[in-house]
């Protein structure tokens, strides 16, 4: 019944979790990767599953995924060329040949230049994004963490969302 407040609850959780910047950073990095890779293939499904399965900040991940999905379309001309370069790199051809003769590989969509291009771009940006986000989150935590948490706790809406999250976590935990 409360599905429509989930994104707000995730946002509240992100703000609450400022004391765990690594989770936020991994959420943003993985969300970026999921958002960049085109959907309707097994690669996107596996990445999505990883995003939802790993103990990371889901709010940051989903928000970043949505943002990168919109931005990713603009990068398609670039990723198309990047993907083609990756797929046709002589050193990688034996690997691709082996991979695409394996079962289910056709569902991965990795033989598509845009898919592999976006995946490559995402993987290439993964650590820098994680690092930058992590450093930024830690900086924010140091400066405004306690103050922000205190201020937020005063808002009833935050309390309500935080309570709902705690309630969900508690019931699932039992």
């Amino acid at each position, binding site marked *: 019944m409360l599905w429509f407040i989930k994104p707000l609850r995730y946002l509240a959780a992100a703000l609450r979790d400022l004391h765990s910047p690594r989770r936020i950073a991994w959420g943003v990095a993985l969300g970026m990767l999921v958002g960049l890779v085109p*959907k309707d293939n097994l690669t996107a499904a596996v990445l999505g599953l990883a995003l939802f399965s790993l103990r990371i900040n889901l709010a940051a991940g989903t928000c970043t995924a949505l943002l990168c999905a919109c931005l990713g379309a603009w990068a*398609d001309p670039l990723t198309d060329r990047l*993907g*083609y370069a990756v797929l046709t790199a002589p050193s990688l051809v034996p690997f691709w040949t082996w991979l695409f*003769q394996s*079962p289910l590989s056709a569902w991965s969509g990795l*033989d598509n*230049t*845009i898919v592999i291009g976006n995946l490559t771009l995402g993987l290439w940006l993964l650590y820098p994004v994680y690092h930058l986000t992590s450093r930024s989150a830690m900086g924010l935590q140091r400066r405004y963490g306690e103050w922000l948490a205190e201020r937020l706790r005063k808002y009833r809406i935050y309390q309500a969302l935080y309570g709902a999250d705690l309630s969900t976590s508690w019931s699932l935990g*039992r």
Partner: protein
Amino acid sequence: MIRWGYLIPRLAVVATLAAFLAFGLAPLVRWAVTTYGSRALGAKIEIESLQLSLASVRAELNGLQIANPAAPDRNLFRASRVELDLDREALLNRRLVVRQGRLDGLRIDDLRETSGALDLPKAETREAEFDSTAFCRQWLLPLAGRLQEDLERDLVTPRLCRDLHARWTGEYHRIEAEVAALRERLGRLKETVRELREARSIPDPRRIELMAAELEQLRGQLERLPSDVRRLQGQVQQDAESVKQGRDHDLAVLRSKLKIESLDGETLTQYLLNDEQAARVQELLAWIEWTRSNIPQPRKLAQPQRLRGHLVRFGDAPPQPELIFEQLAVAGEFRRHGQFVPFAGTITGVTNRPDLYGQPVVVEVRTGWETPLYVRAVLDRSGPTPRDQLVIELPNLNMPGRQLGKPELLALAVAPSPAAVQLKLDLHGDGLSGQLVFRQPSVQFEPTLATAYGGPLLQTRLTQVLAEVKQLSVTVELSGSLRRPRMQLHSDLGPQLAAGLTTAARQELQARVGQLSERVEREVRKQVDDVEQLVRSKSDELLARLDAPCAELEQLLAAQPGQWQLDQLGDLPPGIRAAQLPKLPVGQLLTR
């Protein structure tokens, strides 16, 4: 310690995924097929239920209905059950390959309970209709005109005889009137002569002179009239000769009427069979055109927007189509003349990329033994230009009774009997070539011919002629394009009917000409005899009637004792006969 708070949500995700694959995938595929398939086809595609088994790699569809875009109230086909055995390995490679499939309870052209909406433009009329007006004007009307022609109008003999009879009658009336007038004058003259002769004094010389002149005139007439009568007797021979010449002319004219230009058999074939065969061919071509328009063009499966990059292939394996139906067994029924006819067959080589598959789609269908139908269609899309071959054989078709042509002109009622139809079509691109052969080995015709074109008289003769025609064979040569096909009809019916019509018309004309010739001969003989008899009788009668006036005139001119000698008056000198007569010595001139 198990962290349930962490594990349960993840397990829930996995369970949801598994539940989706188990319960949600089939409805999703069903929704995708009905939604996108309907849009692609332009007509409703309905599936009652769809079961997918990922374990056995098998799909089962129940209650599949595909509406006919051209007739929304009908199904293109309906299958009560469709079973598809998929190739697991191909599926892992993102290809849908149906190794074997089976369509049961297939019904083609079935009535739908609800409409499957689509508005396709109606097929344009491809074949110009047979110009029956021109046919009537060029072929039937001349023939009928010849039969309805007033043959007597051109004959000269009857008119000649009538004229001759009138002339001769008039001639004799004239002579008779002249004789009658002459007799009357003679009577008056006799009275005058009697008065003169019995006169006691010398008659008035002027009166004598007038009387003498009149006597002379009368004598002249009496001498001329017999010669006139005899001349007429001679004239009758000449007239009889001219009548005979007229008779010869008339017989020649009548013989010329027998020369009828033969009807063109091909034109008659067009008139009788064009509509029937054109309808048959057009219906078939409409089906073919519609079918071809609905065969998906060789193309890759549509990809989402962001997947439209380039696919890079690895290895030596040639690219394979994403979708292949290697073999489909079909069994069902189709509607024909309101009845469902069961059929069974196979379809092989259906794919979305025939250019990669390299093999054509082959459809083979057979119906039951009662009305066997064999269809073999080879649809080749492997090349740049579509090439289709179609063979349809109906070796034992029960043709119902039907009517060829139009009853208001010329029609043939064909009795029900078995027929055989064979169609071979070759379509290369839009180009069309082929042949339709229609044979009805034992056939009976009943002609109907409008009164204006010969009526019952010719119809009776035509029936006799058509009794000899035992077989109807039609060959339609097809060429042109699918949208503008050209048909060339060949049949033995047209020439046979044309020959029959010509013969019937000729026989009818011959009979009428024969009758007229006899009538002319008879008329000529009668007229000549009548005239001769008239001349003979009238001449004798007139000559006999002229004898009496001659005798009377002679008697009048003869000298009578004690009366004036009238002849002498004529010998008087001209000067005396005038005013000087009173001065003449009458005693010397007239003796008593």
